[in-house]
């Protein structure tokens, strides 16, 4: 049993078991099928008005009282992302997508076993750009001895891309 599920927006998200604490991007709550999903925290690193799904997710998170984690000083944020502390701890600012921020926070907080679902990247373009940021923090996890696994149909290690 893993300590934590980190849920991304890729196709494999639909098979997420939700059998332990689960973190996700705020955007996921904007999908109707996840409105009532047992998500413990959501993460926000874009301005909600720029992404319709995120704006919808924000409404759901606030209605359900799900903590909203962000490094942006927005009124909707209920939990500040400890960016300074994480940067000092790991001496790295290598972040891009929500998944990279989530993995870093999980490592900072001492989670020992992570399971990543839906970390397939949202489309081909994002997959190529963001993959290195995810693999970097998975490398940090590996170096720390933190156990992690990808969902069975994750594309993260797909060859030839």
């Amino acid at each position, binding site marked *: 049993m893993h300590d934590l599920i980190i849920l991304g927006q890729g196709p494999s998200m639909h098979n997420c078991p939700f059998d332990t604490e689960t973190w996700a991007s705020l955007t996921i709550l904007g999908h109707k099928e996840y409105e009532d999903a047992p998500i413990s925290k959501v993460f926000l690193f874009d301005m909600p008005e720029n992404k319709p799904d995120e704006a919808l997710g924000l409404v759901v998170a606030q209605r359900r009282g799900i903590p909203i984690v962000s490094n942006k000083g927005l009124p909707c944020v209920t939990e500040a992302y400890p960016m300074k502390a994480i940067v000092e701890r*790991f001496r790295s600012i*290598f972040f891009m997508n929500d998944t990279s921020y989530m993995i870093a926070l999980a490592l900072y907080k001492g989670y020992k076993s992570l399971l990543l679902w839906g970390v397939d990247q949202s489309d081909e373009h994002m997959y190529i750009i963001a993959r290195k940021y995810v693999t970097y923090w998975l*490398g*940090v996890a*590996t*170096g*720390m*001895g*933190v156990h992690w696994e990808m969902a069975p149909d994750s594309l993260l290690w797909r060859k030839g891309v």
Partner: protein
Amino acid sequence: MDNVIVIPRGIESYKLCFGMGVLVGMGIDYRVNSGSQVAMALNERRRERTLELENGLVLESDTNGVKILSSGNPNDCKVNVRVAHHA
């Protein structure tokens, strides 16, 4: 004495980033003396010519994109690794 890891050119950046992450996770300080894949991978978002962090990590790239070490195999990127502490 520093340990030197020689990274062949052409390695996919996401694999290289994974390796760098492992070093960070193990608490190993490292310095990159060449541009090549490492600087391109890690410096991308900063878009600066030189990125220097307090832990001794220095990424350098010239206006042509890649600076290659003059010693050793010019096709390789050298990474000097100093064991500083463990996480």
